[in-house]
Structures are given as C-alpha cells and as structure tokens.
C-alpha cells in the first residue's frame, strides 16, 4: 500500500517531523516500509519563465529557439512544441533537473543550437496525459517560482508499505490508521475529519431500500442517493492525491470513491442510479451458474458461494470485489447510489481467489474491516462530492441496514500481566497512556484494567490480553526492552540420537574419506528419471510444481547425485561427494496419510582416469563407515540381479544389515555414463540411514591381549578368473572357528605362468588358540585340513 505524507498531514499533526524519522519509527512500532519515494521531485527545479522571443531553428523546421526570462536570468532553449508564443509563462526544467534515473536535463546542443534547459508538457511534469504541447501557466505567475510551490499537491513523499506486515491490521489499510499510529508514537494530535452533521442537510425526497438476505454474508450495507451529479475531470488537488496513492485519475466521482477508500480504508462504490431497476438493493448469494459482467468487461459464471449486490433485474456488483459493467457510471450520469458496506471476509477472499480478482476492495474486505466505517465513509464521500459539485444533493438519508451490530470487545487484564510478558519495568501510567493514545478506553482499578477495544481494532485483531501486550510493547519500543537470562533449572537436555548418528556419518565421510557434502532439491522431474530409466511413475506429485524438472518428490537420492557428477566433471578431474537427506515413499498416492520419509546417505567417487576400478574406492569408504558405526550384522554380497538401472551388473554389491536390504555399492552402468556424458570412472553408494540407525550395534568391549603365539600359514591356490575370493575364504573359515584367528588375501595374480582364464590367490592364515600354544600336531592337522578343503573344492594348490 502507498502512504502519502500529504494525505497524512491532513489527518495528523506531523509538523516538524522528517520523513525518515516517521518511517523509522513506523518500522519499529507498526509496519515495514519498503521504500520512501519523493513524488515529482523534479518540480523543485522546474521554474516559471516568460517567453521573450520565439525564433525559427536554422536547421530544423519543427524546432524553435525560445528565449526566456526566469526573473533572474535569460536562457535560450530549443523546443519542439507547437503551441507557445511570446509572452506565455511556461515551465522551464533547468539544467540538472532529474526526471527519472535515466533522464536528467543537461546543457546540450540540438541540431547545432545550444539549449540550456527543457520546456515541459503536462505529461512530462507528471500532471496529466497531455503531451500535445507545452503546459502554459496562468498569466501573472511570478517568474522564477518553483513549480513545487505552485503545485504543492503534486510534490509528495510516499511510503511503500510492505502489505504482508499489515495483514492482521484492517485499520492500517487506510491513511487514517497510519495517522493514528504516528500520532500515538510521537504524541501528536489526530485530526478528526468525519462530519456527521452534514447528514442534517440530506433531503428525504427519494426512496431507496436495502435488503440483506444473508446476515452472515453481509454485516452492514449503507446506501445514499445523490442527485444533480455532473461527471467531469477532478480538480488538480484530487488528481494529485489519487496519482500519489498509485491510481489513475478517471473522473470526479470515481476519484472521490477511490480517495475515500485510501483515506479511511473503506472500499466504496457508486452505481448509476438510472441504470438500476427499481428502488431496492438486495445483497444475496449468487445463484449457482449466474452470469455476471464486471466493469472490466469480463464475464464470469458465479457460484452460490459468491455474494452479489442485485436489483430486481439481477446482479449489479460482485460484492466487495468489483462493480458491474451495466450499472457503471459514465459521462452522462446524473444520479448515483453510493455504497459502503461490510462483507464476510472469508467469502470475499474466496470469491477474489476464484475469479483471480484481487482488487483493492477485496484485499481490504478480506482483512475484516470495521463495520462502523460504512456510514463514516458515506458522509466523507458526500462531503467531498459536495465540494466538487456544489449543486449535488443527497435525496435520501443514509439507508443503513445493519442486522447485527457487533458487541463491544472488552479485555480484562492487569498491568502486572503486561509487565510479566514484556519482562521490563513499565509504569502503570505509561501503559495507560500508550493504550489511550491508540484509542483504547481504559477503566483502571488499581492494577486491574478493563479495556474497551476501539471498533476499528475489534474485528479479530485485538481480542485477548496478549494482544494488549503487543500494543504496549510496540509503542514502548521493543528495542527498549533489556535482555534477561531466564531462571531455569540447569540440566543437560535429552540427546537426539538420530541427529548425532547423522553427524557421525557426515564426519566419517568428510574427515576420514574426504567426501564433499552436497545438498540437492527434494524434487525430481520425469526427464531426469527417464534418462536413468527408473521412471515407474510412482513418485508423489506436487499439485503446483514450479517447473517440469521439479514436479514430483524424490524416492531416491541417486538421480540428483548423477547430475552432480555430470556437472562437476567439467571442473574437476576427480572428486568424491555424498548427500544425506530424505526421500519420500508413498505407494498409495491417494490416501491422506503422510508419505514415509526415509533418510538415506548416498554418494559417488569419480575420476577421469583410473589406476584400478573406482568401485574399490567406494567399497572402502562404505565398509569403513559401517565398521566405524559398529553395525553388527552386515553382509556384503555380489549383486547381479534386481539392480537399479544405473548399476554396473558386473561391478555391484548389495549390503544387508540384520538380514534386510540396506544399500548398494556399484559402479555406474556404462550406458548411463554415456547418457550423462560422464567420461572416466564413477562408482556410487546408496545406504538406508534409518535402517543403519536402528540396526544392532556391536559392543565395544576390550579383548585381553593374546598370550599365546600366532602361527602364520601361507597358501596359494588356482581359481577361475571370475571366482569370488570371498567364497574361498569362507571355505577356509569353516575349517575351524576355534583356531583360525584371521584370513587375509595377500595377492591375486593373473598372467604368466598362470593358465589363461585362471588366477592365483594367496592367503595368509593365522592359527592361534586362546588358552594355549598350538602343538606341532595341531598345526599340522589344521594345515592339512586347509589343503584338503581347497583340493575338495577344486582349488589346486600352487
């Protein structure tokens, strides 16, 4: 909303307060101000000058050389306007006048002739749309006078209020509300502008009836018939004000209704009386399917949830949102019905949303306006009309239908409560003074306060003692409250074990394995899933996605990780990344249950060039991670089937924890590498963090150091090239749980002299007993058993 300081100055005494001062205090006590704008600031350097002489331009037919007297200087200006003559007094924008950020008047040469300023049209000055020629000032205008003094109404300072910060304050949607705040903040006087006495001049010669069909839809409706209307342009002062609050001047009546809305915050409407059928105005719900044309010429099909203003011929306005085309005032209008009403905020909000008509009126009505404003607005409007059209005459009284005047809101609280909530010492007197300045009526009795909320704050905004705390606090100044540590028991808080688990994982990956943490969107799109080949259309969709690329919720972390690899390979020859985040699993997408959120940790290692397969890097990272996390029952198994499409079928391993599938380690499938244009080697991992978190953990108990000697035994066997070494190890392992302490693979070798298609695997087996030294016979027997087992399983000794 735009706030004009010119208008404010008519409502409150702001003499001597600088705009910055007012803005700063409003920000600290009332609402956010986005911008302070000096309206028509250029008028400060545009002056009245008399044309002394007009000469033809030697090099251009349409230009003239104009000699001017500014009262102090003689100036020559090149001018392109057609309408000026010697003796005219015209507006001269002197050199340095800044019209916009891009346009400042400079001393210049136009077609070879020097020009020291610019003569202006009404449009250039910001007064009108008239660009047909120079604006000619009244004869006798003093030379050298600034136009800002001549046209005081047009020089204004306006604040752009951040609307979000006044959502809860219906009273601040008009200048009066802000004037009241400023008066309270600076302890200044508020000027009262509503003159109800004018009602005494109303003639009761005409009939108008108002019927409200549903008192839950419309809380009050005031109408007034005014005759002898002459539609014409508004006077300058009104145009200036309407322009300053961001509207375009249209005609006297429209401008007055808009002005009163901006002044008081009450949206107004004027119907052309002669276009109405009958003398009754009916406020009712639209019938389902009723069609209606708003004054922007758009047709709408209404629903039974929309309120309309109607006459006996049908709807004449979409209540609280926009008037109708058929009852709109025009140049020939002579009689009007002024409307000021109060509607159900929720219904207005829904109608405005339904038809996408968030008009100035709708935006105000949805905030729960004060119904008391209606009659005041009619009176104010009539007074201004009378000022513009002296012959205008009210021919009815205010036809006021007010089915249920709201009860006064009264709040009982104590000054102690207010002090306790604020946490600072504010005297009883100061509390009462602040509340009174904001128009609250206080009946104090010791520390007990009985507070009557003024009607303009009583529509939901202020209703409980806590609201009163806010009123006192904000005017007292939150910045004046001293900070204070609360007195509370000192005890360590409960630990969030899952958060700590997450942190532990991140720390192992970052610090021990040098991975960099990425954070990706929770969204994915069809195109990405299609590229990977996992688009099963099972992701939970957004109803209102921002884009096609982000139209559903991820079920996996890997797709975004792949795009991370795709992107970063442009800049790095190698990198390791991971993400720890949630995926959203919902199989029945129609049920209202929340999706299951599964926290996963996934990552990748990438290198442009490989010494050995990237798989092993990732496997080392994952196995160390799971070891450090003390996961007890982990099984790693080569995985060839049921792999996700991005997994390399000959380089994948699945991980299970406590017998459940808990993740995968794999190299990227060459086809997907190709699709993503990833050159080099990339391996991935994806783990179910929730499962790791709840899994059984190994105890961390000290084992007494071994007292009896190890007996190492090395053995090499021949095996098929694609024989998993782990399978050979497990054969050895089975020989003796008791005496085999460890089995390590020392080397795997292929090539001469090993026959083609085979490899040699060397193990170092350590035999030991816990409670004795192994005897030579025991050792011999163990060795023989190993050899026999190898032989039986078809692994020849080397």
């Amino acid at each position, binding site marked *: 909303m735009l706030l004009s300081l010119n208008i404010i100055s008519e409502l409150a005494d702001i003499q001597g307060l600088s705009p910055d001062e007012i803005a700063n205090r409003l920000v*600290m006590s*009332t609402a*956010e101000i986005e911008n302070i704008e000096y309206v028509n600031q250029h008028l400060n350097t545009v002056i009245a000058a008399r044309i002394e002489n007009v000469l033809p331009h030697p090099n251009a037919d349409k230009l003239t050389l104009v000699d001017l007297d500014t009262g102090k200087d003689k100036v020559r200006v090149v001018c392109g306007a057609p309408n000026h003559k010697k003796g005219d007094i015209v507006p001269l924008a002197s050199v340095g006048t800044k019209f916009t950020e891009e346009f400042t008047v400079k001393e210049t040469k136009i077609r070879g002739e020097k020009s020291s300023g610019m003569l202006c049209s009404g449009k250039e000055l910001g007064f009108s749309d008239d660009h047909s020629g120079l604006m000619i000032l009244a004869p006798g205008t003093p030379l050298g006078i600034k136009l800002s003094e001549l046209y005081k109404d047009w020089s204004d300072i306006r604040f752009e209020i951040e609307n*979000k910060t*006044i*959502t*809860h*304050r219906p009273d601040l949607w008009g200048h009066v509300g802000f004037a009241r705040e400023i008066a309270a903040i600076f302890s200044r006087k508020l000027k009262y502008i509503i003159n109800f006495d004018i009602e005494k001049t109303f003639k009761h010669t005409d009939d108008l009836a108002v019927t409200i069909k549903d008192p839950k839809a419309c809380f009050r409706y005031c109408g007034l018939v005014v005759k002898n209307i002459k539609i014409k342009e508004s006077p300058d002062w009104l145009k200036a004000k309407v322009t300053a609050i961001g509207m375009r001047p249209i005609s006297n009546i429209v401008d007055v209704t808009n002005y009163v809305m901006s002044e008081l915050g009450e949206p107004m409407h004027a119907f052309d009386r002669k276009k109405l059928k009958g003398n009754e105005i009916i406020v009712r719900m639209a019938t389902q399917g009723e069609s209606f044309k708003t004054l922007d010429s758009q047709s709408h099909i209404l629903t039974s949830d929309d309120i309309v203003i109607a006459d006996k011929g049908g709807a004449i306005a979409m209540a609280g949102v926009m008037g109708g085309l058929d009852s709109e005032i025009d140049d020939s209008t002579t009689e009007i019905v002024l409307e000021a009403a109060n509607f159900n905020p929720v219904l207005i909000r*829904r109608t405005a949303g339904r038809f996408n008509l968030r008009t100035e009126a709708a935006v105000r009505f*949805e905030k729960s306006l004060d119904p008391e404003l209606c009659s005041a607005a009619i009176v104010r409007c009539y007074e201004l009309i009378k000022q513009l059209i002296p012959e205008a005459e009210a021919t009815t009284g205010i036809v006021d239908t007010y089915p249920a005047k709201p009860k006064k809101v009264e709040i009982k609280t104590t000054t102690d409560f207010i002090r*306790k*909530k*604020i*946490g*600072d010492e504010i005297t009883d007197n100061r509390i009462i003074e602040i509340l009174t300045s904001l128009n609250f009526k206080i009946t104090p009795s010791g520390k007990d306060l009985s507070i009557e909320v003024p009607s303009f704050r009583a529509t939901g905004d202020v209703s*409980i003692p*806590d*609201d009163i705390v*806010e009123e006192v606090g*904000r005017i007292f100044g*939150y*910045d004046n*409250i*001293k900070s204070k540590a*609360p007195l*509370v028991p000192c*005890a*360590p*808080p*409960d630990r*969030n074990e899952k*958060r700590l688990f997450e*942190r532990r994982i*991140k*720390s192992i*990956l*970052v*610090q021990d394995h*040098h991975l*960099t943490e*990425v*954070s990706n*969107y*929770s969204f994915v799109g069809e195109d990405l899933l299609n590229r990977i080949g996992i688009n099963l259309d099972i992701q*939970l969709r*957004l109803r209102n996605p*921002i884009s096609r690329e982000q139209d559903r*919720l991820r079920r996996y972390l890997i797709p*975004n990780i792949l795009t991370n690899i795709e992107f970063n390979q442009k800049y790095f020859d*190698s*990198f390791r*990344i991971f993400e720890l985040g*949630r995926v*959203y699993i919902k199989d029945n997408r*129609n049920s*209202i*249950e*929340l*999706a299951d*959120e599964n926290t996963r940790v996934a990552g990748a290692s990438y290198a442009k060039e490989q010494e050995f397969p990237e798989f092993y890097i990732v496997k080392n990272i994952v196995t160390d991670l799971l070891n450090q996390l003390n996961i007890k029952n982990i099984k790693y198994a080569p995985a060839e089937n049921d792999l996700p499409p991005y997994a390399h079928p000959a380089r994948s391993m699945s991980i299970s924890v406590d017998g459940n599938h808990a993740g995968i380690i794999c190299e990227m499938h060459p086809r997907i590498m190709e699709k993503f244009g990833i050159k080099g080697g990339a391996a991935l991992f994806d783990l179910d963090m929730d499962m790791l978190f709840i899994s059984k953990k190994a105890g961390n108990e000290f084992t007494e150091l071994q007292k009896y000697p190890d007996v190492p035994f090395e053995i090499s066997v021949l095996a098929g090239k694609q024989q998993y070494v782990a399978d050979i190890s497990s054969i050895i392992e089975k020989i003796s749980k008791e005496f085999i302490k460890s089995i390590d693979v020392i080397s795997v070798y292929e090539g001469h002299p090993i026959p083609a298609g085979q490899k040699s695997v060397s193990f170092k087996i350590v035999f030991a007993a816990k409670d004795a030294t192994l005897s030579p016979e025991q050792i011999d027997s163990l060795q023989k058993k190993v050899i026999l087992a190898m032989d039986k399983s078809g692994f020849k000794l080397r």
Partner: protein
Amino acid sequence: MKNKLEEILKSAINSINSSNSIDELEETRIKVLGRKGELTTILRTLGQLSPEEKTVIGKRSNEIKAEIESALENRKDKLSDAKIEQLLTEDWIDVTLDHADQSKKFKRGHLHPISAIQYEVEDIFTSMGFQILDGPEVEKDYYNFEALNIPPYHPARDMQDTFWTEDGNLLRTHTSAIQVRGMEKIKPPFRVIGPGRVFRYEATDASHENTFYQVEGMMVDRTISIADLIYFMKTLLKEIFRREVKVRLRPGYFPFVEPGFELDINCLICGGKGCPVCKQSGWVELCPCGLVHPAVLRYGNIDPDEWSGFAFGLGLNRLVMMRYGITDIRHFLSGDIRFLEQF
C-alpha cells in the same frame, strides 16, 4: 727402531688421509694396528730392548698408536659425513610439489556450509539446555497451519506460498510445524529446537529459493517474557559471529505468536551502510519470533494460564550468507563443488 716407528706413523697417516672409503681405512688399520700389524709387531719386540730403550720406545709407540687411532677416527668421521652429504644431495626432492604423483595430491572433504552452521546452532542451544526435535518435511495442513492458529482462508496463508502434494498434504513452509508436534510429545517446562529443510512455492532468483533451511526454537516455562527471548537471540548471534552483533526487534505479524517480531541484524555485508543484500536498508531480516500465542499452546494441550513461551524461526541460509558474504542463495543447492570446497 725409533726411525722405523716414525716411518710407520708417517706412512700410516699418509695412507689414512688418502683413504676414500671406510674399507680402505680398515685395511690400513689392520696393516698397522692389527694382530700382525706393523706397530703391533714392534710392540711385541719391546721385551728384547734395554730398560732405557724400552721406556723411550714404549712411550713413543703408545703415542704413535694413539695418534694413528685418532687419525683413523677422524678420517672415518669425515668419510661418513661425506657419504651422508652425498646421500642428502641425492635425496633432493621438490618440496614445492604436493605429491610425487600430482593426481594423488590430498583433497580434503567439505561439510556443506548449511550443515556446518546447523551443527553450530545445535551445539550452542544444546549447551543452553535445548533439546533437538524433528518433524516430517511433507506435513499435514494441521501442523503447518491450523494448529499454528492459521485456519483455512486466513489471509496469512498468502504470506507463505505453499507447495501442495497430490494427496492434499503440503511441504512444510516453516519449521514451526515442529512446534505442536513437539508439544504433543513433551510436557512443559521445555526448551527445544528443530532444525530442518523448508519449502516455499516461489520462483528462484539471487535472494529467493524454493528450498531452504531454518531452525525453529521454542521455550515454554512459567514466566517467559520478551526479555528472555531477546537474551537467547543475542547470545546465539554473539556465539555464531563471535562478536556483538547489532540487532533490532520490530513488530512482525505471525498468527502463531502474540506479540510477534521480526529480528533484524545489522547487515554484515555492508556494515549497515546499505547494499543490494539488505535492500539498501542496512538491516537484514533474520528471524521471525515472538511469544507463543495462547491458542497454539492450547493446540499443544498446554494451559496458557499456567505456561507461557517464546518461539523463533531462524533462517540458516541467511546466516551463512551473512557470515561469508554470499550474495546468491542459489549456490546452496547447486551441487557445485567450486562453491562447496570453499567451506
């Protein structure tokens, strides 16, 4: 005999000084001082001499022996020094390189700056007795809006453009959704924080993201006041920025608090002079906060006549941007290592 002794000495010293290896020295030692060495042989014949000669020759022989031994030692030291000297020269490596195989040079990992600041905030609040809570990212309207005193069709819903999922739920627009979930689980008095990812239905640009991070905070006790809230906010900011940070508290409207505030900090990018990040105002909105609205306490089954509380929602992205002078919020979810490796 005496002459012979002097000759042995002379030739031994010569041969020692011209030796170029430990082996050569050893040869000389054996030749002169060995069991059958020249000097040893002479010493063995001392018995045949007269007592006077014996005294003179014996003394001299011992002197010569000591002299040769000392020359041997000296030469040995010298040779050994030379050998190490040579070794050192050969051992030269280019210490200006980072690794013999530059492709294997050490690259550390990096925690995402949001995680890092989140952990800092968690630790600061944990140290002040706050418990860490959590909640779902896809949330029910009830927890995100209704229980926070924002009924359907409330104009405040416009303040937070919302992503809706096809099943009628939503992506939480603020971590405040954790408040009522928390109150359902724990009984007052309590101090909790809830960090997490939040979403807004918004087109992205340098200062807007559809996904960002907040930390919700809430304290409920017998007498909680605005002064308490200011204390915790100031303490947090002082800890995060390791210095006093100028803050201001001004009215802000959020239906779940009453009174409600916006906490601004002096823009650390421009020092309060005005820049694009603070929209020339010198202040940056950091944290909406306020005293918990009695209606919200009631939704959490807490009697507002007995208990009161404060709540705040701290924007983590903004905090990181302020600390490092980042001016484009889109970096956080870009997955760009060039950005991430700076932290």
